[in-house]
């Protein structure tokens, strides 16, 4: 059964604050094998004009995927999570995430489509500091594989 179109435009409440720590950024940079000093060394980050170490471009997924789960796990929407695969991902940045940020995400359902037996859910996540300064926006498309695929 196709997913409920009335979800389009739905806005979820801001997520609980996520505090970005230096060691989490370092752990993430290590995990992607990225030795850039701006992720580890405050002095190197300052030379680039940042007040503290910054995070790699895809670090934001840590914050936004949890936020996106509000939609995909919403019992009203009724998605079978075991059939979900990541279709597309895009980030637009106001500035890099940095250590010391306390971030919250507001998720909006942008579209719900059915294509070739698969349901496709696109969401937008606006990430800002708890003081209201915008940091980045994520656009995620999740594909719920149909029973035949």
């Amino acid at each position, binding site marked *: 059964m196709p997913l409920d179109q009335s979800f389009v435009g739905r806005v979820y409440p801001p997520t609980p604050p996520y505090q970005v720590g230096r060691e989490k950024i370092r*752990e*993430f940079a*290590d*995990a*992607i*094998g*990225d030795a*850039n000093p*701006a*992720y580890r060394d405050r002095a190197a980050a300052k030379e*680039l004009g*940042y007040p503290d170490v*910054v*995070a*790699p*471009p*895809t670090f934001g*997924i*840590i914050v936004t*995927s*949890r936020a996106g789960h509000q939609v995909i796990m919403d019992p009203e929407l009724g998605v079978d999570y*075991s059939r979900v*695969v*990541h*279709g*597309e*991902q*895009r*980030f*637009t*940045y106001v*500035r*890099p995430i940095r250590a010391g940020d306390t971030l919250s995400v507001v998720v909006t359902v942008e579209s719900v489509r059915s294509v070739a037996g698969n349901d496709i859910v696109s969401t937008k996540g606006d990430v800002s500091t708890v003081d209201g300064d915008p940091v980045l926006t994520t*656009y995620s498309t999740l594909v719920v594989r149909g029973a035949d695929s």
Partner: protein
Amino acid sequence: MTTVGTVLPAQSFPIARADLVRYAGASGDFNPIHWNERFATSVGLPNVIAHGMYTMALTARVVTDWAGDPGAVVEYGVRFTRPVVVPDPDGAVLDVAGEVSAVRDDGLVVVDLTATVNGQTVLAKARAVVRPPS
């Protein structure tokens, strides 16, 4: 001077099962399809597959290593077209190349990226908008 056709240094990233376990821990994505072969094959996958976001992160390194400043990336997006299968112990190798496809009026450049494993494309429409290195 960055112009249309400027080629970014290509890179190859070996991916071992242990790298996926590490990325799972760092990212918080513990879906067993990314580390448990028994589970992955039970849901119809050929083997354990890499997190799409891990592939996306590795691909970005071609851009950030070139730009120097990670904050030079103002937009980055990909479409996941084919899973990166990571057998144990052989693993996989992700090959990433990038080329400037446009220079915008505001001085930012568009970098088109290709990401392949064994010559097969794993990301489509992989594109970054970047402030080029001076």
